[in-house]
């Protein structure tokens, strides 16, 4: 029997990592909802955002144990930079990997290959940033940003990590709380944006029926760009929350996380924003609960994939079904 505190511990930490999956999964879900395509390059959008945050803090000279207001300010700047970088990269991906193919009505598989190509490039360019800086002759100036490009780069979180709640061996730390609350707030804001704003209506219209939407005067190209941008912004936010939880990043950090996030999106019902939230949280919990039945941590991916298969067999469109168009219940 596991003690209750362990169970609570697993539940809470599962929700924390699950919240990150959820936020990351939005990019997959939104693009799929609108274009019916798997955006394979989304993992690199996340990775670039994480570097945006790391670089911003390095530039601003972040260190541990700063005063509260300064630390919060720094973290917000990092958040904005990460979201801007991720959003920008997402738009670049849309431009170089998708637009031409969409205009030509190419089959979805070709778009997938195009995205895989873009993903390889984006990840390797980050992994080679020291070499590239060397070519341009800036490796001296940029040393703190580019050195040891294949290794982990540390994110110096200026906020102290204090215990918020402690009950009988079960503890909640401030960093965990920030991640969980931050992710859920972002998701609610996005859900409201898509279901209430004019632009959000456009996104839903296109995902429901692109042709009808076009006839009704929705600018499809703009909607697609907006979709990529929102997905990117959310990935940037996810990257900062991830770094608060796990304070290092590297050029290939997106790959495994991307697969998890994509699994979460499908689990919840791809194309559905609330589905991404549910899918991410469920995935995070299941991964942690695998420990309860005595499985080693290395089996957790097997458990989550088996869960996915079972869910898809009984609910072929995921837990909440796929309906970005009908997001407003």
């Amino acid at each position, binding site marked *: 029997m*596991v*003690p209750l*505190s*362990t169970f609570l*511990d*697993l539940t809470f*930490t*599962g929700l*924390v*990592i699950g919240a990150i999956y959820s936020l990351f999964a939005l990019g997959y879900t939104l693009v799929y909802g609108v274009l019916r395509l798997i955006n394979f390059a989304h993992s690199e959008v996340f990775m670039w955002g994480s570097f945006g945050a790391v670089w911003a803090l390095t530039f601003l000279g972040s260190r*541990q144990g700063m005063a509260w207001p300064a630390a919060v300010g720094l973290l917000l700047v990092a958040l904005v930079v990460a979201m801007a970088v991720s959003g920008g990269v997402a738009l670049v991906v849309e431009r170089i990997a998708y637009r031409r193919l969409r205009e030509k009505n190419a089959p979805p598989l070709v778009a997938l290959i195009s995205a895989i190509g873009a993903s390889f490039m984006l990840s390797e360019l980050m992994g080679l940033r020291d070499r590239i800086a060397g070519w341009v002759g800036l490796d001296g100036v940029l040393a703190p940003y580019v050195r*040891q490009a*294949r*290794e*982990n*780069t*540390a994110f*110096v979180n200026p906020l102290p*990590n204090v*215990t918020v709640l402690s009950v009988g*061996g079960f*503890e909640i*730390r401030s*960093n965990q709380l920030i991640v969980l609350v931050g992710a859920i707030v972002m998701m609610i804001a996005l859900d409201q944006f898509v279901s209430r704003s004019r632009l959000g209506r456009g996104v839903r219209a296109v995902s429901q029926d692109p042709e009808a939407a076009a006839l009704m005067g929705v600018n499809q190209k703009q909607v697609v760009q907006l979709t990529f941008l929102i997905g990117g912004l959310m990935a940037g936010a996810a990257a900062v929350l991830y770094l608060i*939880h*796990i*304070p*290092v990043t590297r050029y*290939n*950090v997106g790959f*495994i*996380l991307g697969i998890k996030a994509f699994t979460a999106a499908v689990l919840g019902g791809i194309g559905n924003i609330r589905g991404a939230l549910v899918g991410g949280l469920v995935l995070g919990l299941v*991964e*942690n609960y*695998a*420990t309860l039945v005595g499985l*080693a*941590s*290395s089996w*957790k*991916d097997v458990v989550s994939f088996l869960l996915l298969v079972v869910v898809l067999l009984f609910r072929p469109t995921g837990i909440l079904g796929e309906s970005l168009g009908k997001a407003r219940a």
Partner: protein
Amino acid sequence: MRSIVKLAAPAAAAALLLAACGTTGGDETSSGSASGSSGGDCPEGISIGFFGALTGPNANLGVNINNGVKLAVDQHNAESGACQVALKPFDSQGDQNQAQGQAQQAVGDSDVVGIVGPAFSGESKVADPILAEAGLVGITPSATNPALAENGWKTFFRVLGNDATQGPAAATFITDTLGKQKVYVVDDSSEYGKGLADLVREDLGSADIKDNTIQTGQTDFSAVVADIRASGADAVFFGGYYSEAGLLLKQMRDAGLSSDQVAFISDDGAKDEGLITAAGVEAANGAYVTCPCLPPDQAEGSFVEDYTAAYGTAPATYSAEGYDAATILLDGIAEGNVTREDLLSYVASYDQPGVTKQLKFDDQGEPSAVSVWSYKIEDGQIVADQEIGS
């Protein structure tokens, strides 16, 4: 073709080193007409190879080793009247499929008389039989799987202790020196990490209260940390590499398992600055790593200074072993052993002090003098602690 100016003064040699690593390197054309200082002949284009991952996901380890090898080659070539030796890269990306092609390439290249590598145990299983069949000596700086030496490959040598020396020493260190009796053993399911952790588990006996396995590349260890806490362990041993070790350590400390309560001990794969990068200076404080290698101040020569001057960073995991392995081959060439056959028998009877240990091999190619040390992390530095076994 006499294009390379030979420099005698050590200061000038150091300057040459710096220049050499500023450019690409690896393809220095040697002017082989030099008459070797110790009288032997010196064929044009004579080369040693580095076999390991220079690109791809495991490149970080391979590049560290290659830097050590390159330093040794550059120093050798800069010596006055030295037989100019080229360094050829055999980049396997740590992948077995590529390892086969690269091993066949190395074997087919008659300029190559010796190999530093293969770097990893997995690729060694593919490449070493090929080297053995062709009689091409391969000194591995980093493949620690004990079983590799038991295949009867006459060309197999390694300059570091295998897991079977480190495992028991680490277990004794944890139970006797640190006095911990409830150890939680985690491995990263890699051949190296799992192999070593299994040996530690065996030697800990009843002091090993619980096991867990993670995946390489995993970053979130909250379930493991929760389990460690629930198990009431007073020490954690991690078998694996620095990235996962650092993140696990960080998450343990974040969850309130302080270093007084739960000691953290890892292995030579974690003895790298990357451990501190991943864990952060604060969380890394007080952690231990064991390593079958001598602390730098015990070693002769100026390896650490030279390496730092050449690459701008301190030697990383296995850089020193790479340097040692290359030095053995280069010494052999300097003494006129310029065929594969001669060099192989030279290596088998080698007995000289190296940077990491006394370099001497037993008949299986294992180093015969290995001392295992523990290192402690203090204020972001990995400092030597004590000798824990030999």
